């Protein structure tokens, strides 16, 4: 009889913080006044997200998102907006690239964890133990990068 090694811990994946952000996402909604925006979709599951950014003097003065998705994708987007608000554009880009890289890297080293330098974001590290859900967590970050880099494309996970 085939067996399989145990995968990630559910309690870690669905920490209270994640559920709270999924239930009551921060900075949720359309922002009419924005300098950049971008759409992202996951064609496999139908999740959709749109990110709005208002840049002022090289900083992200406002950021919001709207869309439909699972708890992981909504919580990730909500945390994204909290993390990147008031950051310099350069810093925010670095954050996003780093997040995507860490999520997709195979070995999780404690070094990587530290790089987040953000305890809230670190709760999402548990997603790495659920390989089918990594795209849920990264879609909004990819969409953010596309918006801030002014790419006129719909980001897709596939």
């Amino acid at each position, binding site marked *: 009889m*085939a067996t*399989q090694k145990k995968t990630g811990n*559910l309690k870690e994946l669905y920490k209270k913080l994640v559920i709270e952000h999924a239930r009551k996402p921060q900075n949720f909604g359309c922002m009419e006044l924005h300098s950049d925006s971008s759409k992202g979709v996951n064609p496999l*599951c139908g999740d959709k997200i749109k990110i709005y950014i208002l840049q002022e003097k090289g900083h992200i003065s406002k950021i919001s998102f709207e869309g439909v998705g*699972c708890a992981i994708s909504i919580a990730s987007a909500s945390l994204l907006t909290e993390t990147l608000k008031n950051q310099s554009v350069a810093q925010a880009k670095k954050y996003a690239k780093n997040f995507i890289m860490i999520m997709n890297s195979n070995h999780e080293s404690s070094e990587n964890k530290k790089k987040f330098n953000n305890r809230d974001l670190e709760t999402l590290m548990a997603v790495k133990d659920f390989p089918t859900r990594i795209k849920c967590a990264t879609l909004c970050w990819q969409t953010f990068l596309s918006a801030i880099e002014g790419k006129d494309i719909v980001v897709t996970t596939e």
Partner: protein
Amino acid sequence: MNNKNEINQVKNSMESFRSDFPVIDQLINNKKLVYLDSAASSQMPNQVINEVSRYHSNDHANVHRGIHSLSHRATETFENTRKNVSEFINSKNTNEIIFTSGTTESINLVAQSYCRPRLKKNKKILISHLEHHSNIVPWQIVCEQTGGSLDVAPINQDGEIITEKLIDMIDSSVVLIAISHVSNALGSLTEVKNIIEAAHSKGVPVLIDGAQAISHIKVDVLDLDADFYAFSGHKMHAPTGIGILYGKEELLEAMPPYKSGGDMISEVTFSATTYNDLPYKFEAGTPNISGVAGLGAAINYIREIGIDNITVHENSLLDYMTSELQDVDGIRLIGTASKKVGVQSFLLKDIHSHDIGTILDHQGIAIRTGHHCAMPVMEFYGISGTARASLSIYNNHEDIDHFIKGLDKVITIFN
């Protein structure tokens, strides 16, 4: 549908079949696997796995090409299965059975070979609102190629095609009607026989997408008088990459080849090529011979159990699952047709189906989540997706009890 004794008898005998499926007997996350995703792909019994292996170990060679013994044996396996399929769905002739890679290719074949020459401006294909993407997109493409249009018959809140409305939409501008026998997202059983009869009275042929019907209910293409019937091996306990297109001989005869190459010709010169006879005209290239061997074994397996016994078993499980689901706090059933086959879609509170899927998987329970390749159905209900549990021969009451208990955990985590 049947009396209690009969159901119990079937139930007892079905338990013994479960052990034929090695995949089912494993731990996922240290829990016994509960496989409720057969509508996406069903599992294979040892009889099928062994036949595929036997074919590879003993008989493998190319078909229709060699004079040597192995080629002869491979060809025999291949053609015997064609006969087997023909008997299984009761087609008049064996040459009406075409091997394809699956339902998707079968539908594409009909779109390009039957519809493309006939479609033009003011001509239509008629489908329904509950179709799988593979019974939508091939028609959209052929409409784009020809200037034809796609008409969509409505469904009701229970997720049933409204038969009268569909029939009202049939007129001489309709080149073909293409509808599923059973909806993959909702499980609804379509009144295909009535629809076919009405279509024929107006001279319109009908293609039935039978992907979700073939392993669950008796399919008799002669009795239905279907013009085309498409299905996939992997949804009837055979391997992936093999499927069937049944077509009436006179229709297939008049159709040009869909793909071209070896095996589909009778004579090739550089000035002209004569096509081979049916069914080879549609089977260019070396086919999936081991898949065909597996399909033959799967049909034998289903026949051994008896398709009617399978229907009784799955219906009684579906009734049980539906009534248990109804008692779950915050559940909303999607797809409540009066006649259904082994599928139940649902929403649970405001919890996204992916989260339900992950939490169930953690308990060893495999269900499908998302739009099920039927986005128009999701749009009809104003939702982005559902969680879906689907049943097969190897499922039992215990599976359903585990599944329902698993949903409690979903609720706990999200409270």
